């Protein structure tokens, strides 16, 4: 990023921070803070191990330092500003789930955001519907980038170490499923229901193809020979019926076991479709820094927006996370692109363009454009 673009960006951020409202995490004084600044040398360096004693102090810091990125720890520390982890003395941490489109799919920005919203709904349903977390303890934050962060705050989970958090993240991601328990008698809720539907769908697809290709597909699974694949395919209708019914335990043995426990393959994809694909290490890491709600994401210029479940329905990041206006700005675009912002779709050619400020900040932040002067 060139000096003029840097200067332009920093000015816009400064403008925003003058009047911005932040959503501070509980126990501000027990958090570690970290910031990345507008560094004209282009180097990305984080200044961390910073502690503040009050919300006011944080706000003053934000307004005077105008960071490009702002983070606070998910953890609570006795001495958050100590420079090593043991000296900080860990006291607990919020439970965090990170849903990032990058981990789920590639595609156009608006498409990715829609998709990750679906994952967010699945996760929220699991957390509050199945696992019994109460709405009040769950907050949603648009990350300012390509996803959402879910913060769960309650006294019991606060003390959890990585192993306890792993139980939960494995649950939402569908990791460690043992078919025997999924297909147990009387089990028809939560993962059991999802698993049964995934297996049924997989079996239905096998039954739709001709016998020869079905046998070939099953026979290619490790440990399954062609003869057993043949008899497996021939009794698939019956097996499928058993899997759908919860009246009896389904014995998971022989070919069925090999089919259900195969590495990769179409069944795993169907299970993943039903899971909430969060970025696992974010949840198990009990000392992570996370974007501060209310700050701007320096790689997009979008606001990191705290949301309620109800807000999420109509939340359109390309409108609702945009804090800059429509006054025209001249930019030099590195490549042609089409992009919706603030309800309008912009198709831009490579080179000099006049665009609304909101789009200019976004494109500059992404490194897709350079600032080329204001338009009078």
């Amino acid at each position: 990023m060139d000096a003029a673009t840097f200067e332009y960006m920093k000015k816009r951020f400064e403008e925003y921070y003058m009047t911005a409202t932040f959503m501070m995490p509980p126990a501000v004084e027990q958090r570690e803070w970290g910031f990345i600044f507008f560094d004209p040398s282009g180097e990305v360096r984080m200044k961390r191990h910073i502690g503040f004693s009050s919300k006011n102090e944080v706000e003053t810091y934000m307004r005077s330092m105008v960071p490009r990125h702002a983070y606070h720890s998910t953890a609570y520390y006795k001495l958050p500003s100590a420079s090593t982890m043991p000296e900080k003395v860990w006291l607990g941490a919020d439970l965090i789930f990170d849903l990032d489109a990058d981990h789920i799919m590639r595609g156009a920005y608006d498409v990715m955001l829609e998709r990750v919203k679906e994952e967010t709904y699945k996760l929220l349903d699991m957390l509050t519907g199945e696992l019994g977390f109460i709405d009040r303890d769950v907050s949603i934050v648009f990350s300012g980038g390509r996803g959402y962060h879910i913060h769960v705050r309650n006294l019991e989970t606060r003390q959890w170490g990585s192993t306890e958090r792993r139980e939960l993240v494995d649950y939402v991601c569908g990791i460690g499923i043992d078919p025997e328990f999924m297909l147990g008698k009387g089990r028809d809720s939560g993962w059991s229901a999802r698993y049964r539907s995934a297996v049924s769908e997989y079996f239905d697809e096998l039954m739709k193809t001709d016998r020869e290709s079905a046998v070939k597909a099953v026979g290619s699974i490790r440990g399954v020979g062609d003869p057993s694949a043949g008899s497996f395919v021939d009794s698939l209708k019956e097996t499928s019926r058993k899997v759908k019914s919860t009246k009896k335990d389904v014995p998971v043995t022989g070919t069925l076991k090999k089919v259900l426990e195969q590495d990769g393959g179409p069944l795993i994809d169907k299970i993943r479709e039903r899971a909430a694909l969060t970025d696992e290490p974010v949840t198990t890491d009990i000392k992570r820094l996370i974007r501060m709600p209310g700050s701007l994401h320096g790689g997009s210029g979008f606001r990191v927006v705290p949301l309620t479940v109800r807000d999420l329905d109509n939340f359109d990041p390309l409108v609702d996370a945009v804090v800059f206006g429509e006054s025209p700005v001249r930019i030099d675009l590195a490549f042609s692109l089409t992009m919706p912002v603030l309800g309008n779709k912009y198709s831009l050619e490579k080179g000099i363009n006049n665009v609304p400020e909101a789009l200019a900040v976004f494109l500059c932040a992404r490194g897709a454009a350079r600032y080329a002067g204001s338009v009078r």
Partner: protein
Amino acid sequence: MPVELDKKDLAKYPFLKEAQHLVSASGYSIDSLINKKHFIVKKGAERVEKAIKFDYFFDDIRLEMAEWEILSYAFARILISCLNERNLTDRLCRYEAERASYFLQTEDPEKKDYVTSIVGINPGIEEIPVVEYVGLCPALHDSKWRLINRDINSGLVRIEKNEYDELIKEKIRSMLDDQLPLRVGEGICSLLSSLTEGISSGYQEMLMEQFGEVDEGSFPPCMKAIINAVTDGTNIPHTARFSLTAFMHIIGMDVHQIVGIYTRAPDFDVEKTMYQVEHISGRGGTEYTPPACATMKTYGLCVNRDSYCKKISHPLSYYKIKKKMMKGDEAPVPSTKKDIPDKVDEKNP
């Protein structure tokens, strides 16, 4: 209505408050017993040794010697606190939990309910809130205990009748684990040093028998790949660092040996590494075990699979099997850099 517990009951469950009251009412003093080199102190050491060897044989426990049983429990805890070694503490807690569980199996229902409620489980309860369950289950290794495999309805985890005993045992273990180490004065620990040193060297010997010398040549390909990535200075993901560290810890490498592996990285940060290694190897509370092959796969860390991999489902089994094989074959191939694959798949570092 409180249940009546006699002396024998207290010998079975020495962690109950009533057991401690019994001992202090009998006029025994910890300090004077140590000073007198009373044989009961040595009994405590034997208790620790049994725990370390996983010697879970409880048929010959003489419950009529209730005070002695309870005192040996107390001394075992003092000794383990002086040792202050995560693995050993963990084994003592397991031993005590197994021991109590052994007696609970045939216990009078009322008394069993009492002990159950003392350790924090509501007797006869059929469901446990998810949050409470997750606090309990990580140390239970069977796949049936994983949260994802449980029958859960609106935030409640269903517990089958036949699962109670295991759950109670785990609760006792974690309760004792939370209590240790006790704060024991240096004076007392130095009086006990001959016993603690004996325990410590016995443990080392046992480890040597079990895993013997560390043989990097027998490491599974996934672990070798991570080491190679470290050596190349690749920024490895947390999951990789965790898996490798836990693996090396379990096969008996100490913190310094483990850190030694990480020093191969060009940008090695001593303090950070020491901290992480100590955390994973149990200083922070839980002792971690390396992930099984299935989990390694989900992490994208299961790479360069070879013929041994087909026989096992856990990196640790690979190591045990291969090491044995290598020993069986003439002279073991000395561990050299050549054992390490040339390149880690960049998509799966």
